[in-house]
Every structure is written in structure tokens, then in C-alpha cells.
């Protein structure tokens, strides 16, 4: 159940990030969705951390959020797909997940 909570928290995080984009496009309902999704996401994280190690939970959550936002940005908003961009995002992703796992 704790792992399911982490996965759902990751999905809420990605929806939240997409609403940062919608907010940038002046869609004001995005502000409400943003608060609800990030709020739910953090609540699920703290629930998962009751049974799973904090670093692992944060690592997986950060990973889902970054990878998910990049992929959804490409799918919904046609953001660049060139390999150099994806390589550097992957470097940030791998480093951030690594840092979460060892701390």
C-alpha cells in the first residue's frame, strides 16, 4: 500500500506540474488544481514515509515527477525532443535520485 501511495503521489505531482504550465497560460482554475494535487501528493508522501525509508520515497517521487513532467511536456505542449536535451535532463534526474537515495 505504501508503494502504491508513492506512485499515486508521483502522478499527482506530474498533474500539479502540468498545472504550473496551465497557470502560466493564465488558466486560473489551474491554481486550485495545483494546490489540491500538490497537497494530496505531499500527504501521500508522508503516509508512505511511515513505513518506507524517507530517502527512497523522495527519490522515487522526484524521479516520477521529473521524468513524467518531461514526457508530458513533450506530449501535451510539443516541447523539444532532441537527444541532447533528454541526455542533460536524464543526468539531472539520475543525480537527484542518487542524492535522495544516499541521504
Amino acid at each position: 500500500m505504501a508503494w502504491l501511495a508513492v506512485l499515486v503521489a508521483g502522478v499527482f505531482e506530474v498533474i500539479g506540474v502540468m498545472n504550473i504550465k496551465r497557470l502560466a497560460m493564465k488558466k486560473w482554475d489551474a491554481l486550485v488544481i495545483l494546490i489540491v494535487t500538490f497537497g494530496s501528493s505531499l500527504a501521500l508522501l508522508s503516509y508512505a514515509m511511515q513505513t518506507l525509508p524517507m530517502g527512497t520515497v523522495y527519490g522515487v517521487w522526484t524521479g516520477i515527477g521529473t521524468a513524467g513532467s518531461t514526457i508530458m511536456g513533450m506530449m501535451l505542449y510539443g516541447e523539444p525532443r532532441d537527444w541532447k536535451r533528454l541526455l542533460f535532463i536524464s543526468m539531472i534526474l539520475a543525480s537527484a535520485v542518487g542524492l535522495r537515495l544516499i541521504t
Partner: protein
Amino acid sequence: MNKYWFYVILAALFEIYWVAGLKHSESILEWGITIVAITATFFLLPVAAKYLPIGTVYAVFAGLGTAGTVIVEIVVYGEPFQFMKVFLISTLLIGVIGLKMVSNEPAKSERKEVT
């Protein structure tokens, strides 16, 4: 540096502050500053996302936030210093700098809202 990149970096700095604030705030003043920092983060990110890809914005924001939090925990809160942390922070920063270099932002005059 393009000001939208500056906003993302600023948002990450606020995040580093409030992550520590959530963990260590004790007085009402400290909690107040933490809440202001959270609000500032979520004000800056949509402004940056107006002209930068959201995938880029979030990767840089989450990455710098993580690296900064690890540094603050070592310097301020006495967490152990490990070579692996320094190595991963270095690769993370190379990723951010590389991403900045391959992002071709349109010049100010021809900039238009990305939809």
C-alpha cells in the same frame, strides 16, 4: 543569463529554504517566513514556465532543490560529508549547465508564448 532561467534558480533557492524551514521551524516568525518562501516558489515557477519548457523548468527546479538541500544539511545541520554526494552534485550541475546551453530561447523581440 535569460531572466526566466534566473526565476527557476530563484524558485529553487526558495525551495531549499522552505525544505529546511518545514523541518526546523520553531517560532511563528520562522513558520511565517517558510510559508512566504513556499508561496514565492509557486509564484516564480509559472512565470518561468511561460517561456521555458515545463519539463526543463521542473527538472532544473527539482535538481537544484535537491542538491541545495543536501549542501545545507552538510553545512548547517552537520550531516556527514561523503565523496558520492559531491560527485552527484557535480553531475547534476553539469546537467543543468548543459541543459541551459542546448536550450535555444528566442530573442526578446521574437519571443512568443509557448502553447
